[in-house]
């Protein structure tokens, strides 16, 4: 079995991992780096649960070998919130809009949507439906997710670049607006 030493940056940290050639990026992230937020819903490239950013582009980590990420910058769901835990506008919007139930599809959606909103800062409803149609959710009927994308786009537009939403205190379990 061929093994390779892989150098890459994951969520801003340099990593050096010894992997088998056949190991997927998703399995390497989950098993070797214990970043288990990247989920596997199909392992054949359809559900989008395994989406991560490789050099800024959203990719399905179940369809990529870990060795293909050699030298890359990878961002997983664990790298989306800022260093002190402040949620991104997309993460806050998911919570605000009931964009998740079981939460299994959620990391893939959030990572995909971060990338989608970077490319389409002011999406129409049609754009949003189209833009997230590569991710499957079995719980929400997509209602809250679509709303969350809209809200996140608004929040991002109203907030200086690279700043997360202001009012996303995680501990606030109180009544919604």
């Amino acid at each position, binding site marked *: 079995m061929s093994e390779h030493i892989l150098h890459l940056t994951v969520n801003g940290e340099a990593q050096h991992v010894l992997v*088998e050639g*056949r190991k997927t990026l998703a399995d390497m992230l*989950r*098993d070797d780096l214990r*970043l*288990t*937020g*990247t*989920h*596997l*819903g*199909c*392992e*054949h490239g*359809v*559900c989008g*649960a395994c989406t991560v950013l490789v050099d800024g582009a959203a990719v399905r980590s179940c369809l990529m070998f870990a060795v293909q990420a050699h030298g890359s910058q990878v961002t*997983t*769901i*664990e790298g*989306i*919130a800022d260093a002190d*835990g402040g*949620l991104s506008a997309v*993460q806050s919007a*998911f*919570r*605000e809009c*009931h964009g998740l*139930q*079981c*939460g*299994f*599809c*959620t990391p893939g959606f*959030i990572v995909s949507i971060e990338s989608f909103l970077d490319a389409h800062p002011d999406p129409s409803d049609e754009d*949003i*439906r*189209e833009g*997230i*149609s*590569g*991710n*499957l959710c*079995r*719980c*929400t*009927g*997509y*209602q*809250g*997710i*679509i709303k969350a994308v809209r809200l996140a786009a608004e929040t991002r537009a109203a907030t200086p670049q690279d700043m997360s939403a202001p009012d996303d205190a*995680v*501990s*606030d*379990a*109180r*009544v*919604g607006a």
Partner: protein
Amino acid sequence: MTAVAGRYVGQSVKRREDARLVTGHGRFVEDVAWPGTLHVAFLRSPIARGRIVNLDVSAALAVPGVHSVLTAADLNEHAREWWQNMIGKDAPMPPKRLLAEHDVRFVGEAIAMVLATSRYVAEDGVELIDVDFEAETPVLVERAGFEGVAADDANLVHPEWGSNVAQALPGPMGPGMPLDNPALEAVLASAAHVVTETFTQHRYLCVPMESQGINVRWDRHRERLEIVSATQSPHEVRSCAARLIGINDSQVHVVADDVGGGFGQKMFPATEELAVIMAAYRLGAALRWIEDRNENLIAGGHARNEDLTMTVATDESGKILGVRAHHREDIGAFPAYAVGSSASSVGMYLPGPYGFGEYFFSSEAVFTNTCGRVAYRGPWMMESVAREQMMDVTALAIGMDPLEFRRRNVVTPDQLPFTTSTGLVYETVTPQATLEQAAEMVGYDAFRAEQAEARTHGRLLGIGLSSYIEPSVGFGIMGAEQVDLRIDYDGSVVATTGSGSHGQSVETTLSQVIAETLGVDIDKVVFTQGDTAVAPFGSGTGGSRTAAVYGGAAREASVLLRNKVLAIAAEVLEASSDDLDMDLGVVAVRGNPGATISLADVAAVAYAGYTILPESIEPGLDVSFRIRAPMFMFSNATHAAVVEVDPVTGAVKVLRYLVSEDCGNMINPMVVEGQIAGGVVQGIGGVFYENFVYDADGNPLTTTFLDYLLPTAAEVPTIEYGHIVTPSPTPGGFKPIGEGGAINSPAALINAVRDALTPFGARVVSQPLGPQQIVDLIKGPASSAESI
């Protein structure tokens, strides 16, 4: 009882589950990594039916990293008892086995398990197992038709059962079911209108985004089995594991943290999971099996797959006088629970929100060499699928609008309490109100004009209604759930119960009920479920019972604890407890703002300073309440769908979808709407996209998400809601809501398609309604693949 809107209950409180889940810090079964765990992969049958004539695992054993390969000979004889808490010991059950022995009975049946250092290596091992079969004629509805399967005594799915008929009602397996109804025959012979039609629904599946999976280890030194499982019911897993092995429940510790959906599939442990449990126990090892999507689709349990023939008699005015119904199900080889049939529920719930008059129901379920049936969100929902289509078909046949026909038959408030033709008693349902609200919201009358106008331009618009009563059962272990509640020494509130949330927001909603009733800050409530070491015995989350049954128990436990807090506070404040209030964790004497005591101080008295309390007050601050739920709880809803059919491509677009519902007091409207939306979209998937197909040899053809199509955001409309709130008589006034979206949406959608295709006189009675089927329906019966 009146509707409540308190500080927490009735509010769209944001979920406490979300913070960990949106940041990638959930803990799902696959996220658990115990040291030294061996990974399991299964060798599965590639044929539907046949003898195993050779099974040689030696090449697999030689693979570096393969620890062992187990077959039926290693495991099956050690299985002691195999039955489920929820079903009980005495329910008839088809044969069960951990691994296929001597023969195979469906494509995907597990034959051997490879244990290895990684899943990659385990799959390498599976590849090298040498297995040969002598194929036999598979027993398939796809091949022989339903009657052919039922009558075939030469080819039996389960020779031990002696027949391919799993269950027939009425009959010896339907206690209390009358064998005939002569009064109905008289009605059918004399009624002004008698209409008969058969409705079919195809095989479609739960498909939670997280598949099934389990981690198990046996600690031989402590004689304790540890399990982390993706389950809806940790206590069910505990009991099944203990019984299978022959140890005590208390020796098994089951934990389910975050569970990625279930929809019924995770109600009972899968056969593969039981095989892993047995293997871990026999080997004294830590094992893990994570079902992949291919396994989940072909062997994880199938659903729906049935037809129902209804004959409806009405008088001149369209009043229903009598109904006869016959139901047929293909339940596969190894259904997940009991005999696998949902017929007794289908028959019982079929009258739904209408007076049926004279009634008779019969059914037949057959085993086939296909994947067995599991529960899927409203396992009995064929009653709504068929009844609500029949309402439209009958209306059409007697020349009446479907809305008007429903109006003439729906149960009205002055009829309550209403006893259905099957003996169910409705006390607080409001089907007339939801019907009218849905009709008004959708603009039913205006739509008819719009539709006529659109037709002149060649556009095919259609509208469909569907009403139902959502039942939730409260008998057996499902009717007596317990909530344990205590206030700790620091004043925090700790709640534990046997629920098994897998997306239903139970941590949030039960905390709302507790905080509201007790009078504390919701952030002070620590809620734990999914852990058999701390939770009282429970049946998990399933059957639309969590709000009504666990919610009711949470409310009653909170009342008990509040009373105790007030009794202790009364001693300290030297007041009567009747004069005390507690809000946000502070007890105050009404009308005397200065006289207060905090919950932490009450706790200090309860645990340490109890000597100041009279003997009649027991020290401590903990209570338990196990509720006794009514046998049946009911909510109701009406769905309305507006669709446009493209006459050329056959594509259907859902233009509007709305739901008017009455689930009593809503604990959290945001969560209620979320449950409805998820169910409705599962119905959209089932009617238009999802279809699990076998060929005539029993080979599954839809084994990936490229062939088994789930709806995406691009296919769903914005769902609109109308709420009518009529509290139930149970504590809190909550009613079931979890399954209704999936139960009631198919008929609304199919009715809308039929309505759109009225100009073609199309007979729309089956699903799926994909583009090809729609085009065939438009072309007419001559070209229909359905025609015989």
